[in-house]
């Protein structure tokens, strides 16, 4: 009896120690997020107090004259990410629908793997490919053609430079495509099969079934996938830095060089000339962090909601 209680106690103690140990490990995750926020705030304190919110609206960026306005970078980030979504969303939804609803089963595995491979390749390799393949192609073929046919629009006017907003947007679209496609694929997979059968048994075609029952059910999850893709586009650094041209000017033409928040940090952070410069860069980083944080939180909630509804539905 005594031995029993002794053993019980050691077992419990083992459990307790184990549990405490792994809790400490797990809490690191939360601490990290908080620490990143604190550190970036601390680093950007100088810039925050010097120019505050006006920083966001100012277009002048001249480290030599100590002029720091963040607008060109915010603009560049938004435009390039928007371009990326414009291309990537329809394509990746097509991929996801193809992989879950249409493709013969022997094709699903290999094609799915290839799409995931697209996500696995390092950003810097995309940049390399962008410099030597995509940019020459844009400069020599696509941009002149666009200028000829749609040149009356301000976006497609001006000289074809290759390195510019269009190149940045396209590289980004390739990089976020697998994110949106694979999250959407998971969301579509979470749609219960009885929903599909119910529609098919009423005499719908596949597409009518998908549009009428699968997509409405998966809607918020797909929106989540798109937001995740947007988050990735906003923060993507290397590939964009290598093709976007890196000029802090706001231009209407997509052919003209631009600059993104992540790029300017990558290019200038280690070579910042003064405390204010460093602090201004940190403020850009803080803004980027806050935006991606909010987008990710929102996206996760949306994706999570679909799978939860699906689980409840199947339990019924």
């Amino acid at each position, binding site marked *: 009896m005594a031995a029993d209680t002794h053993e019980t106690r050691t077992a419990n103690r083992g459990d307790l120690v*184990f549990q405490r140990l792994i809790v400490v490990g797990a809490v690191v995750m939360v601490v990290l997020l908080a620490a990143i926020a604190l550190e*970036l705030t601390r680093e950007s304190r100088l810039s925050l107090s010097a120019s505050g919110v006006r920083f966001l609206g100012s277009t002048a960026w001249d480290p030599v004259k100590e002029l720091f306005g963040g607008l060109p970078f915010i603009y560049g980030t938004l435009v390039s990410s928007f371009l990326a979504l414009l291309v990537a969303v329809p394509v990746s939804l097509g991929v996801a629908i193809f992989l879950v609803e249409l493709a013969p089963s022997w094709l699903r595995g290999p094609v799915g793997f290839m799409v995931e491979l697209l996500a696995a390749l390092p950003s810097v390799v995309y940049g390399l490919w962008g410099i030597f393949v995509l940019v020459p192609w844009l400069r020599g073929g696509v941009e002149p053609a666009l200028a000829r046919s749609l040149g009356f629009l301000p976006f497609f006017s001006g000289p074809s430079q290759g390195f510019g907003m269009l190149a940045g947007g396209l590289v980004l679209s390739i990089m976020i495509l697998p994110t949106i496609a694979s999250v959407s694929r998971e969301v579509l997979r979470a749609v219960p099969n009885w929903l599909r059968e119910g529609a098919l048994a009423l005499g719908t075609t596949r*597409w009518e079934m998908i549009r009428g029952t699968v997509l409405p059910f998966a809607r918020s999850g797909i929106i989540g996938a798109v937001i995740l893709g947007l988050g990735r586009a906003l923060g993507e650094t290397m590939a964009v830095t290598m093709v976007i041209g890196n000029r802090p000017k706001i231009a209407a033409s997509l052919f003209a060089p631009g600059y993104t928040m992540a790029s300017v940090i990558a290019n200038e952070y280690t070579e910042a000339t003064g405390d204010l410069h460093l602090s201004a860069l940190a403020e850009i980083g803080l803004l980027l962090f806050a935006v991606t944080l909010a987008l990710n939180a929102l996206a996760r909630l949306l994706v999570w909601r679909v799978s939860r509804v699906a689980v409840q539905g199947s339990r019924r």
Partner: protein
Amino acid sequence: MNSRKNSVDRIALPGRRKITDLVVRTLCLVATLLALVPLLSLLQFVIVRGAGGLSWDLLTQLPRPVGEPGGGMANAIVGTLVLVGLASCVGIPLGITTGIYLAEYGHTRTARVVRFSADVLSGVPSIIVGMFVYGLMVVTMKRFSAVAGGVALAILMLPTVARSTEELLKLVPTSLREAALALGVPRWRATLRVVLRTAAPGIATGVMLAVARAAGETAPLLFTALNSRFWPTSLDRPIASLPVQIFTYAISPYEEWHRQAWAAALVLVALVLILNVAARFFVRHRTDAR
């Protein structure tokens, strides 16, 4: 509404519906093919141009100054291995324990906060993580270092490893857990000996994918490990890495460096692909059947 009298007509499907169905199916197929074009083009260029620049010197020699032909990036290859090794030492154990916590004690409020943080952290741009580690380590240690680079990569690996470990542990049937507990094994021992071991192949997959991702990261290394033209000698010195080297060479104006950038890209892509394919090999059970 249809009347039953014309039931012969009811066998035919209105052409419009059939055409719409066909058009949408075709569009989805086209989208999929379109998505694979950049992958194939990229792989083609990396292989063709990379093979052209690949040489024994590249894999064994140090870089030479501009203008001097030849030279290699052996130090960058070693550097990447060192950085990834450092990151793995921190990121994998911490990630796995966090995963265990989420799977085994995952219903508490703390666990939900941790899970949410992991998801959000995985979406934080890697350059931000670089800035954070710069402030945390580079500024305080007053020098760029391999350790700082390793820590930055570890932070990036952490959420991936944790979440995939959690997902895989959840797949282990409860009956197995209960069987061990019913034998009088304490919970922590049951978790480590039975549950973790059962899920080990899947966890290895998650780990390999995280390692592959870390190996290709560039942005967080720019402010932490920096770069170096020499062999790595100490962990508190700057260290070269393949991604940073590719970046530096790619944006340089020198033909010779471009050649080497492609060759280095081939080495890096091969490394990432091998890790990915090996990871796939580990999980045969995750079929794509819906």
